[in-house]
């Protein structure tokens, strides 16, 4: 369950990027590749625990999931890979190790709660 470690990293990194310690985060937008080795439900569950008593407490998490895509040199084409991930070009059937997309683990942006004074 390294999702808890990932969730703690998200909270730390977001807090470092906030303009002040007074703002509260309403929503966190993530991009996670299907081949990043992260289970979405486990991450969402862990996030609630990691965000407790932080500026991200009660924030929602939106995850954009990115399929695994590999590139074949011979065909000069990309193939989208399902599960289990067999690293073969869908056009020529040859094995290829080149990953174009699918290992992302990124914080894209955060949305802040409206300032109560405004």
């Amino acid at each position, binding site marked *: 369950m*390294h999702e808890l470690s990932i969730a703690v990293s998200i909270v730390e990194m977001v807090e470092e990027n906030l303009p002040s310690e007074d703002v509260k985060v309403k929503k966190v937008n993530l991009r996670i590749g299907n*081949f*990043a*080795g*992260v289970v979405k439900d486990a991450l969402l569950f862990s996030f609630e625990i990691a965000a407790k008593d932080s500026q991200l407490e009660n924030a929602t998490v939106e995850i954009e999931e990115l399929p695994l895509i590999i590139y074949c040199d011979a065909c000069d084409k990309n193939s989208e890979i399902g599960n289990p991930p067999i690293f*073969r070009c869908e056009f020529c059937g040859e094995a290829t190790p080149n990953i174009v997309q699918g290992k992302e*683990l*990124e914080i*894209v942006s955060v949305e802040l709660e409206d300032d109560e004074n405004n």
Partner: protein
Amino acid sequence: MTRIIEVRKGILKKNDELAANLREKFQSANVCVIDLVSSPGAGKTELLEKTLGSLKDKGYKVAALVGDLETENDANRLARSGVPVRQIETHGICHLEAEMIEKHLEGWDLNELDFLFIENVGNLVCPSSYDLGENFRCVFLAVTEGEDKPLKYPTIYNSSDVAVITKIDLAEAVEFNRETAVASIHAVRPGIPILEVSAKKDIGMDEWISFLESKANKKASVAESL
């Protein structure tokens, strides 16, 4: 109006940066660093114990860091090979991180080492995301595990640079299908070199040691051998 702040950063950026620093340190010290990953019970410690002994006998300077959730049992066992060994107790964390490696290297002179082995926590999922600054990652598949394990845990196999099939002496007893296993490994990691060993029965160990030597940055510090 909702304020949006762009972050656009990798979640594991801190670990990646620390790992990059470690990699630089390892390179400048000319030490070959190997990260060993597998499920619990695949034979990492047994193979590592024999490996440390063999490399030491050949005149190499070797050391090992051993990750486990709890206990120093593995470090005590590996210390029998007479090389420096340190235990990393993660206390519940299911993988090693670059920060743990950095902390446990304190006081060791990397320039004095030819090989540093890092035995990761026995786990086929979590270690795959964490770069430790290693030269290469080695995944072990025991013949007792089932030939389709690579298909079930593709990320760890894909992130590895060499696969070692362990406990090969038991292959016949468990009706291990070599072709299926090799096909599974190559399905999720095309082109990865595959070795077969039994540390207990000393099968394939010479090939394994030669493989490590071919990856090492410097020749054995053979002293007084003539």
